[in-house]
């Protein structure tokens, strides 16, 4: 009845602009939004949520999904407190393990 729940075929990752946090730390960018690995969330599901919440392409969303899967976490955004809270709230509505962390100067 159901499609397979096997792991997503690993794509060739082609990092694009904005995949790394900005190098500067300012009050407007003093927080990072992190997604943590959680074995229960399906890889395709996580990719879909990243696309929906951040408006990313599938390639970029898969890059971050694989970073979560392989490294235990991925920094999804670096931004101000208000926007970081918004992103965390959106991700948590989907029950992803997302947090915001203050970035030290």
């Amino acid at each position, binding site marked *: *009845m*159901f*499609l*397979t*729940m096997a792991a997503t075929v690993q794509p060739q990752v082609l990092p694009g602009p904005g995949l790394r946090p900005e190098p500067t730390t300012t009050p407007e960018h003093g927080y990072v939004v992190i997604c*943590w690995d*959680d*074995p*229960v*969330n*399906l890889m*395709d*599901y996580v990719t*879909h949520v990243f696309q*929906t919440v951040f408006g990313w392409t599938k390639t970029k969303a898969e890059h971050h999904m694989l970073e979560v899967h392989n490294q235990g976490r991925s920094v999804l955004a670096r931004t101000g407190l208000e926007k970081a*809270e918004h992103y*965390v*709230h959106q991700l*948590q*509505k*989907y*029950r992803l*393990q997302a*947090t*915001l*962390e*203050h970035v030290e100067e």
Partner: protein
Amino acid sequence: MKLFPTNAASCGFEFTPQEKQLFFEVLALYPLTPPAHQRLSRTPGPDDAENQKLLEEALAAHRQETRQRVQALLTDPRSFQAQGEGYSWTVSREDLEWLLQVLNDVRVGSWLALGSPKLSPAPKLPSTPEAWAHRRAMDIAGGFEMLFIAALAGELPV
């Protein structure tokens, strides 16, 4: 389950009676994930308690609104139209998004109830009826998630 041709704003499905029953069983379990499962931050800070409280209030409001939507879907006879030996169901893409949230709440909540086991390799078979029920709900919710994501991406065979 089949997907039938729809427009850019909605998706249409054909359910067998058994599929509809499984879908409704899983939806009726919502909400299952404890609010405390979600943390705003993992780094201690001076405003942690207040910020965490605000997050939990926001999630609780969202949970209440979503619970009402689930109840409406479960009780409105117009949701699923009898067709042949099964049912047809047309749903907007927007509604599929909150349904994905519902399904994953049930999946995560069931997994937590099982003791958060590693899922790869496959965990041992449950040893109690209660654990079987959680395992079943977790797997069924995940199955519907995959179907809906494939439908949203236009990857489900018509």
